[in-house]
């Protein structure tokens, strides 16, 4: 770990006192500290935000829920409102990591966790995300867990968060605060970038910009399902995950939202699949057409080729489950 300066802050106003470019926010630390030990992240300064008063869940007037950034993954997953109204989010959170990690992990930290690409973690190997211009070791290397959609020649990494997939399907928004105090709102879907020529940039956040909260809108009606496919039954990142909200009215799809995890550099909102399904009958054949529509541009890099059929099959299976369940989620 490279020596660094540590400062605990108690109000967001204190952020502006530092040169924001040099500092990193420390929340639960379950990802950042690991990366600092490996000297993959080498901040000059750590601003410990864990004592900020940003750990509450608040009902919004329109039926939504505002989740402050320091709400832990455990607290969020077990909140009765979340379990009842946004079960997709609760299920996604509970499928991630372990109870111990979830007790410590925060909402903002979870969104900003970095890729698990093996080469990103091995500082002896070239990696454009770590050192732009160095090359990508994964393209021709071990890439079982890598992207099939939206990758670039520079980087084929995936974003590992389960929670983010649910938030994208639920169309949640972020409240962000720049170092100078300006606030802005941003759909979670727009937070993460595709790698393009700048895989070193995971997100569109400006230096020093703080995630203050995530707001869940009142959910659209329909059955919510999160399905995570992985190599072991717990404590493994998703090979493919799918979040679905499906409403079927009188034998046709009234509304649908779909997001994939494990397929791209960001949680992947499957708008093509959604468009293909809307107003159609919820049949196996239509599910397949929808999945194929989304995956036309998918490509594998060897070890991860199987993710293309797996994504298709998992989406079909999840839509089938959602369509055939009696139980409708109350709104």
């Amino acid at each position, binding site marked *: *770990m*490279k*020596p660094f300066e540590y400062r605990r802050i108690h109000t967001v106003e204190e952020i502006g006192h530092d040169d924001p470019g040099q500092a990193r926010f420390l929340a639960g630390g379950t990802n950042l500290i690991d990366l600092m*030990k490996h*000297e993959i992240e080498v901040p000059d300064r750590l601003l410990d935000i864990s004592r900020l008063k940003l750990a509450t869940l608040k009902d919004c007037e329109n039926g939504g829920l505002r989740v402050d950034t320091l709400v832990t993954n455990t607290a969020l997953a077990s909140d009765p409102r979340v379990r009842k109204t946004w079960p997709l989010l609760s299920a996604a959170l509970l499928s991630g990591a372990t109870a111990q990690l979830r007790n410590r992990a925060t909402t903002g930290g979870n969104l900003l966790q970095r890729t*698990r690409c*093996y*080469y990103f*973690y*091995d500082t*002896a*190997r070239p990696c454009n995300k770590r050192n732009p211009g160095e090359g990508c*070791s994964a393209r*021709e*290397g*071990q890439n*079982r867990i890598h992207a099939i959609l939206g990758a670039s020649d520079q980087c084929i990494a995936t974003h590992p968060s389960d929670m983010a997939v649910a938030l994208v399907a639920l169309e949640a928004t972020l409240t962000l605060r720049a170092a100078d105090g300006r606030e802005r709102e941003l759909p979670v879907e727009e937070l993460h970038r595709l790698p393009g020529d700048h895989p070193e940039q995971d997100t569109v956040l400006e230096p020093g910009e703080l995630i203050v909260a995530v707001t869940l809108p009142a959910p659209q009606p329909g059955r919510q399902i999160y399905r995570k*496919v*992985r*190599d*072991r*039954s*717990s*404590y*493994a*990142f998703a*090979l493919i995950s799918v979040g679905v909200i499906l409403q079927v009215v009188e034998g046709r799809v009234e509304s649908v939202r779909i997001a994939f995890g494990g397929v791209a550099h960001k949680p992947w909102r499957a708008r093509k699949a959604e468009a293909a399904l809307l107003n159609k009958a919820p049949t196996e054949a239509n599910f*397949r057409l929808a999945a194929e529509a989304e995956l036309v541009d998918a490509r594998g890099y060897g070890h991860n080729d*199987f993710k293309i*059929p*797996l994504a*298709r*099959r*998992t989406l*079909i*299976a999840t839509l089938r489950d959602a369509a055939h369940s009696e139980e409708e989620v109350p709104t």
Partner: protein
Amino acid sequence: MTNPAAIGQPLDRVDGPLKVTGRATYAAEHAFDQPPLIGWMVEATIPAGRIKRLDTGAAEASPGVAAVLTHHNAPAQTPFGEPDDKGRFTQSRAMLFDEHIRYHGFPVALVIADTLANARHAGALIEISYEPDEEAVTTAGEEADEVPGELDGGMEPDLFKGDFEHAYDDAEVTLDVTYTTPNQAAAAMEPHATIADFDGDQLVVYMSVQLIGPSVKALANTLKIDPDKVRVLSPYIGGGFGSKLGVHNEAILACLGALHLGRPVKVVQHRRHVFHNAPHRGNSVQRIQLGASRDGKLQAIGHESFMPMARGYEFAEPTGASARTTYRTDAIKSTHRVKSTDMPLADSCRAPGHAIGSLAFESAIDEMAYQCGQDPLAFRLGNMPDRDPGTGQPFASHDLAECLREGAEKFGWPSREPQPGSRSQGRQLIGYGVASTIRLNILVPSKTRIRLSADGTLTAWADMTDIGTGTYTILTQIAAETMGLSADRIKIELGDSRYPSSSGSGGSFGAASSGSALLNACENMRTRLLESAREQGLIGDEPADDARFENGQLILGDKTLSFTEVLNKSGAAYLETDGEVEPGDDHDNYSQHSYGAQFAEVHVDRDTGEVRVQRLLGVFSAGRILNPKTARSQLLGGMVWGLSYALLEELMLDERYGAFMNRDLAEYHLPVNRDMPTIDIHFREHPDPRSNPLGSKGIGELSICGAGAAVANAVYHATGVRVRDFPITLDKILRHLPE
């Protein structure tokens, strides 16, 4: 009343309270008045070649750094691998010896500092450039063509019995398939760790090691010091699985650091180090050819094994062991070939030979059963041997058929649909699998000394180790039963090279070997006590055989004397006796194995190919069970490893760098609680007097052999898909499952 500590009783682990309260001192935890300095290992990033330039200036100037050790300044050592006529456990394991890189991850420097953080950061400041060897060999497969000197455990690399080619060509039903198993890590919970300290001019080494005696020799040899000047302590080990049999890299480095600085140095391998700096199991290619008559009688068994061998480190795994020992046949061809590679050291790992041998062989046997149109259980039962098929020796005992029968009944095997892929529940395909389990039963020379004190307590000493298996506990029971003492009167002292030389832990031989030596010492003690009592005139001349030893008392005729009385009367503060065991003719003349049968039920998701094991059942025959509780735990662990080999574990090799890429426990997949099915374990208890004086047999590695194949066979039965490339991850099933 039975002594609750007697052999066969489910005595709780005597070291349990120490472990769950954190008072059992593991290698890295030994405390000193002056805390040791901390060493951080800096690893090579090429598989082979030499160091061209090494600049340690910035590291040396970094805060807290006491020394940076490299091949330029490390103390003198014997060259790696010498003397070459000695086995790998005593040969030199020199580190920082010269500029040559043996494998990816090979230590090129040790940074020694006041804290781990300072050492680790300074490590990142070392600048190294390499001249890589362009010819580096980082893979091994079917092209392996070197004949190893001998196989681990002493088996011959090649075995030919009968006329294999003819028998195979003439067979009505034949099978010729190739199975592969990946590189696997031992993945013990406790990483390899060592503290090197001094006691006067003696080097005192606290380390996590399974075999103490050989490690003293290895350290003395490597460091060119007198073996008397080395003491090794290893009282507790947090799992070894073969990877801690010998001395490993951090131990040599800690000693070099301590010798260089004249101060204690601690080196704990980081989890990411362990994957390259502790030995692993190499990948295997196993070609299996079977020939049988149409009615399912095996006539030819062929097994060709191809594996890597780390250059300069002689170790060849007896992968063909299962093919040579399990079924009756007219002809056997079993060969082992290795290929020298520039890969990290390959060595023993969780049941070398049978574990991955049975994974492939018992899967192939299953294939053959289906080809002959037989139930896989019936096929196995129809091919039981009456002598050891490979050696022709008679069996000391043989209980495989009974294990299979009993297991089948308990598991509900008869309810199985014969046709693969024919049973489902919702989207889950359901399958049953079976496999035979067989594991070599070994006895190795072992010694013990015991002392019976006048206060009626007994202490036993041996340089034996307890790798978390329950050795302290079963030794307590052997002494308790033989001497008629309660557990709290007995103290077992292990893990110190000053104690009598024992078997150490490995190859499932620990309990039998160290236990038999202790039994012998206790029997000698009984004789001594009787003699002493007789000399004092405390007893008459009734035959010694009539004497009983109970509740700390000697009972003979109408006399009941406490041990304390006998000792007090004789004026001795204590009595000491030695005990030992040597494998005798029964091990030369008989085929000695433990047996079992394992059954698995799996569910396979027809959409995603995910496999979940629903239940595992095993029936085991391993002689006399010393403690059903610790025995069950051993078998339970082995079944979990078996499941893990079938479905999960794989070191992902990047051939370009000779490096395993998934070097952490998030990505090297071991089973977690949720992967664990219901596990049902039964014993068929038949003490085997030819095995050893206790009548017990090896149990530690038994259940891993076969458990994986039972799971793999269940996957086939569920899906009709036979995956021959382990582990069976979902992608390998998915491509064959209709959408």
